[in-house]
């Protein structure tokens, strides 16, 4: 069953990749002209077009690219001549690290906040959390990034402003440099998750089994986190899977601000420069990541909900 699910991912990724190819190709602007330098001559533009096979029709180019990818050859960037796989390999881990950290911050912080909000629904504390959530949700992440940058890096000099140190070079530096970007990305997510969890929890806390647990005399925290949390987390989980795309979009912006050599920044440049080969490679990986993330969410469902695992329908 799982294998079947995995196989359905393949056409999805292929479709995304083909649509992207068509879209970038349709964009006005010619890669060869941009590569030919200032004051280009016709001969230079023509020679570059030949070199990059840009004169072939689009379906031919796409199929050729697909064939190359199947053998592991993702081509070389038009702009930098760097092998696309190498470029992605250098940059993807950074974006993944920031994205995962952002996700973890958001989830770890939203669970207690959401639970407390639900448990103490409509009280002062709930209203505070709600207001702060909406406030944070309304702030775009580039504003958040700038604010964090100025407060923590310039005013108080706690964290460095820009740049990146690889995790293999220096773990301490790496963590220091990843906190602000991850925080900028996580704030918006935090708000969404808190609200979702709160809504689901409120509904769950009204269920019979919760009343029974209370009647049995179980401690409150146990009821909340062991019994009520699990059934309440399904919407949250679904959204987390869907938010992966949002994280990548946010990464493009945040990476610019903090000068991180991640995949978002590279994709943005590649599109601006009509670096088709690089865009295709990156989109393929992003497509795969998103699709796999949602697949992972499906898997976690079965872990969280024994009823799905056993394949039986939910009791009325």
């Amino acid at each position, binding site marked *: 069953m799982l294998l079947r699910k995995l196989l359905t991912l393949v056409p999805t990724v292929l479709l995304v990749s083909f649509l992207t190819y068509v879209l970038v190709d349709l964009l006005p*602007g010619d890669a060869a002209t941009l590569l*030919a330098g200032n004051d280009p001559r016709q001969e230079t533009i023509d*020679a570059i077009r030949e070199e990059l096979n840009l004169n072939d029709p689009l379906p031919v180019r796409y199929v050729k690219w697909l064939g190359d990818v199947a053998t592991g050859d993702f081509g070389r960037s038009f702009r930098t*001549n760097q092998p696309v796989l190498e470029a992605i390999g250098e940059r993807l881990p950074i974006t993944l690290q920031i994205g995962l950290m952002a996700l973890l911050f958001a989830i770890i912080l939203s669970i207690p906040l959401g639970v407390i909000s639900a448990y103490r629904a409509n009280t*002062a504390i709930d209203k*505070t959390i709600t207001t702060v959530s909406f406030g944070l949700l309304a702030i775009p992440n580039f504003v958040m990034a700038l604010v964090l940058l*100025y407060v923590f890096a310039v005013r108080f000099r706690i964290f460095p402003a*820009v740049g990146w140190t690889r995790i293999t070079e220096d773990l301490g530096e790496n963590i220091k440099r990843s906190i602000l970007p991850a925080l900028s990305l996580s704030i918006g997510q935090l708000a969404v998750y808190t609200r979702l969890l709160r809504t689901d929890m409120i509904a769950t806390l009204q269920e019979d089994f919760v009343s029974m647990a209370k009647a049995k005399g179980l401690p409150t925290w146990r009821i909340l986190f062991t019994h009520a949390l699990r059934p309440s987390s399904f919407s949250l989980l679904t959204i987390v899977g869907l938010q992966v795309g949002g994280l990548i979009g946010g990464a493009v912006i945040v990476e610019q601000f903090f000068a991180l*050599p991640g995949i978002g*920044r590279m994709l943005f440049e590649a599109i601006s420069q009509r670096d088709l080969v690089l865009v295709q490679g990156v989109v393929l990986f992003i497509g795969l990541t998103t699709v796999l993330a949602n697949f992972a969410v499906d898997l976690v469902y079965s872990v969280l909900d024994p009823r799905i695992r056993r394949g039986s329908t939910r009791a009325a």
Partner: protein
Amino acid sequence: MTARTPSQRSLLLRLLALLAIVTFIGAACGGGDEGAEGENEGGIVENETEDEGEPQSGGSVSIALEAESAGWQPCVDAHSESGTMVMRAIYDPLTARGEDGKVRPYLAETLDSNDDATEWTLKLRSGVKFHDGTDLTADVLKNNFDAAKQPSSRCFAALQPIKEMQVVDPLTVKYVMNSPYGPFPELLMASYPYSPSNAEAKGKDVSANPVGTGPFTFVSWERDSKLTVKKNPNYWQKGLPYLDEVVFRPVTDEDARLAAVESGEVDIMHTLRQETVKNARNLGDAVNRIEFVGNNCGGSIFNTARPPVDDKRVRKALAYAMNQEELIAILGGEGISPSCTQFFSKDSPWYSEKIAKAYPQNKPAEGKKLLDEYKNDPARSDKKAAGAEVVVEFNCPPDPTLIAVAQGYQQQAQAVGFKMNLNQVEQATHINNAVGKPPFTDADYMINCWRLGSQGDPDSVLFNQYGDPNNNASNVTNFSTPELQSLLKQGREESDPAKRKEIYEKVHEIFNDEVPHVWTGATVTSVVSKPAVKGIQGWTFPGGKTKGNGAENSGIRFVQVWVQK
């Protein structure tokens, strides 16, 4: 006020929460004093003391650049303005410009021409080695030249004036021109000899593994993160460089880059944006600043092949409509950016006061008169009825400052009677629209935001940009007259500077009359550095006697930069 009821309590708490958020943001947006300093007339404005003391050896310096480059192989990779600094660290240019504006040999030992400038002979120094140990010889230059002359090379266009290069002896080459070409030494300013054996060994990966003769050797490059170079122990200029290491870090966001130098994280930063130049002024004495105003100006180009701007009266009306000072103020450049009237700044030896006075601008009444003349012309080029509105389209990339300028210009044009539509066009498309398609005699725009002018010889900037539009992708205005072509040819072939100045003045007389472009204020750039970093301005030619042109275009040559311990 004490909150009594639960609802009052919760309201209070909610308000407090909101206040907390607002304060948090407010804390970060600390006010800075608006400091307008004196007017910039051109050249370099600095608050650095002239005498910096004796250079000290050792130390490492980091600089935040405004953009990453595609790679470091000459004639193959695009490098940004900031990338030139990296190139000059790893490679040496054959020639360079001095403080007096004159171009002299740098890596080359001598460069002389025959009487009519149809042949230029270059002699190399002996004993210069590349970082990989191979020698710099005439054969190397020939190898580099042959690669650069390929149609697919980025240098192809620039090398058009050269017919061929001959190797005369192991250290001497001769360049033969197609016709007399006075400004040739200038062409070699962007000529960076590279090691042929390295290029062959690395193939396509040479862009990330550069080997030159420069003061620093390439160590490592993490794209979009940092590039590290270290001192070349066998550098041909003995005693140089002073620094042990330079680290280049591309930071594209302007505010983040300034923050990086403010927080001390990098030692130097540079910017090509007026807004950041202004913000840097607020940093006061904590940093050293050098501001540079050169020949590059913002402006707009007209597609002279497209109605209604194909008619001289319409273009001139648009020029008379423009109040440049007002647009500069909108850009935030008041007191920073001087206005432009020609391809040369007031500082330049090619500047003409006569042309400046005659440049058509800021005469709305004149503009209205010309516009009405066109409007009521029954044979008007846009084929509309006499008296119908004249509609023009103005395209700019979606940069906030450019949008502001566009809106300002729109107001000014509409005051004179135009209907001006504003369009935002993404950068890459913008360029492609201006360039057009073969045979390049038309293009896909009417009026475009653009940048014009550079520090080079007038020939280098004008010859291609206003050359014959037929099959010439770089003549983006598609403007040409036989007289203009003849003048440009004369300018290239004449060697007497006084006569050349007259020729380029005549070229500008044509520009003032036909108006293929207008100007919207000079580009101001700036280098901001920690006070401990010295030598940014003071590089000299080999031998130490002749001063170079400092940090032109806010580009630094690291060969003679040093840090005070």
